[in-house]
């Protein structure tokens, strides 16, 4: 397994309107390799989404280093970060975040609009294959609003993996689903990333969802603790 991401002593601080600092993350260390399934559990406001944004190169650490495939990202330009994000990172959001007014096929094909060469020209075929893979081959032309929550999240999963990312970041992927559907979706997400060899990082407040991960962490007070450590 090769190393994808390494966070070393990462902090994230934001300035509040009263000019004081709010420390959201403090001294976070984390290593992610291909094929990993990491579950990060934490209550609301503990910095789960902030951590996910850092991992997805949507945000930058205030201090500490974040290395992507061995390269420090502090000097990474926004354009290069966007290219890595497009090519190697897939996102699954709690609220699905499907593009309104577009069919399931168009939503899944959307990331391929930023792909070079044949992937762009064959985007519809690739997207259709991906939707069949998540069991929505019969709903290609359905609009998001005509799909159930579980189906919408499956479309979002297909969209996240359509460019064959090295890492899939799931932010409360079952948060808007009932228990049964949530379990189905997590099974699908776990299975599909396992098949493709992509690392899966799930951020959740649901213990059951986190339990599906092979490595588990708890985010508390801005610090990341290995659940093994906690147990110990």
């Amino acid at each position, binding site marked *: 397994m090769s190393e994808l991401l390494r966070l070393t002593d990462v902090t994230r601080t934001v300035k509040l309107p009263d000019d004081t600092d709010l420390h959201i993350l403090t001294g976070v260390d984390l290593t992610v390799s291909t094929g990993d399934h990491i579950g990060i559990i934490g209550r609301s406001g503990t910095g789960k*989404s902030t951590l996910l*944004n850092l991992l*997805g190169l*949507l*945000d930058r650490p205030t201090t500490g280093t974040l290395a992507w495939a061995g390269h420090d990202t502090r000097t990474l330009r*926004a*354009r290069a970060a*966007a*290219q*890595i*994000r*497009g*090519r190697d990172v897939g*996102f699954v*959001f709690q609220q699905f*975040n499907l*593009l*309104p*007014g*577009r069919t399931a096929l*168009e939503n899944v094909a*959307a*990331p391929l*609009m*930023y792909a*070079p*060469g044949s992937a*762009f*020209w064959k985007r519809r075929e690739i997207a259709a294959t991906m939707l069949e893979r998540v069991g929505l081959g019969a709903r290609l032309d359905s609009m998001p609003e005509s799909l159930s929550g579980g189906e919408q999240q499956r479309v979002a999963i297909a969209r996240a993996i359509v460019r064959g990312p090295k890492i899939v970041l799931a932010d409360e992927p079952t948060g808007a689903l009932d228990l049964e559907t949530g379990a189905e979706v997590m099974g699908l997400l776990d299975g599909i990333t396992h098949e493709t060899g992509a690392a899966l990082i799930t951020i959740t407040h649901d213990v059951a969802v986190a339990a599906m991960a092979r490595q588990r962490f708890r985010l508390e007070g801005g610090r990341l603790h290995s659940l093994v450590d906690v147990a110990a």
Partner: protein
Amino acid sequence: MTGFAAAIVEAWQELRIHRLRVLLSLIGVGVAVCALTCAVAVSSIAKQALVEQAEREGGRPTTYGLYAYSNENGEPPPPAESRRVFDEIMDEFDITYHSAIGESDATVALPTGSRHVSLRAVDVAYADLRRMVPEQGRWLDAKDAQNLSPAVVVDARLMKALRLGPDSLPATVTFGGETPITATIVGQVRKDEQSGRSTAYILFDAYDRWFGATQQMFDVNFQMWVPPKGAKPLSKAVAQEFSSQLPGLQVQVNRQDSSDRGESFKTFKYVVGGISALILLLGAMSLLNIALVTIKQRVREIGIRRSFGATTSRVFFSVMMESVVATFVAGLVGVVGAVGIVNSPLIADHVITNVTDIPPFPISAAVLGLVVSLAVGSLAGLLPALIAVRVKIIDAIRF
């Protein structure tokens, strides 16, 4: 290449999805471009109408008139003799289009009584000099001088007075006097705005034969249509030659055509252009307004796209392209609408009534319409595009 194609596809998807909003916002632009293109096209037709009217009144550019008077008594020389000399000089200088012109009065018997009309003696080339195109029948021919009854072409005013309708030619008209003369009307031209009277045209050579015995022509002059380059020296050379061949005459050459037609047209052009620009500005403002409101609604979508790997330049380009593609389509529709309006029978029947050579729809007007629509699209897209690239991804996704 792929990035450009993708941006176009993306822009088109946006337009398709938000078609109602796009349609509403683009109506203003389409109408403005249509108005602008129509204004340019109609002004081109109006310019042609002004040019033609000027040419009917004063001749084509550049037309010179030659007037000759006796140095002793101020009387003009005998028309036949000066006519012969003028024709020889025209041959010598290789001037193709020239005409002798003489005025006369005649009385015409009408169903309602008799009326004084202008009888203008001209040569065949007069129609070319004055852009006269018969509305019915034909113009005078050199062979008409040999006819057993004089051939005349009448203007629309006389035609109406004679109660002759369409397809009623050839017809006859009787010119009164001591010996009434019945002439054959072979053609009809538009009414003579210059004299403001009913007018009949007869060949200069035929006038003497039929009317010369009872009434002499007055205001006899000779006109020639010459190339603009070197026209002035040429006209002076003609006058000099005329003087040398007919000594004892004072000979004058004057330019006949109107030379300031461009000036009179400018005001019209500026007024129409100003109104069109104002309409366009309002259209652009409404487009910008809707584009700004929309981009605020699309913050989340932009954030999601950024999470897929859309770079800031790509987001900027996509938002710009949406505006440009949309306004280009609106502009195209506006231009097509303008072509339809300008070429419609309604315009042909009610607006373009005074033009013989209707100019084709000016390509420049169509190009201007499209260029303006692209410019409006770019300007209206710039501000929303700048806002779109300033969106913070994290905030946008949570929006």
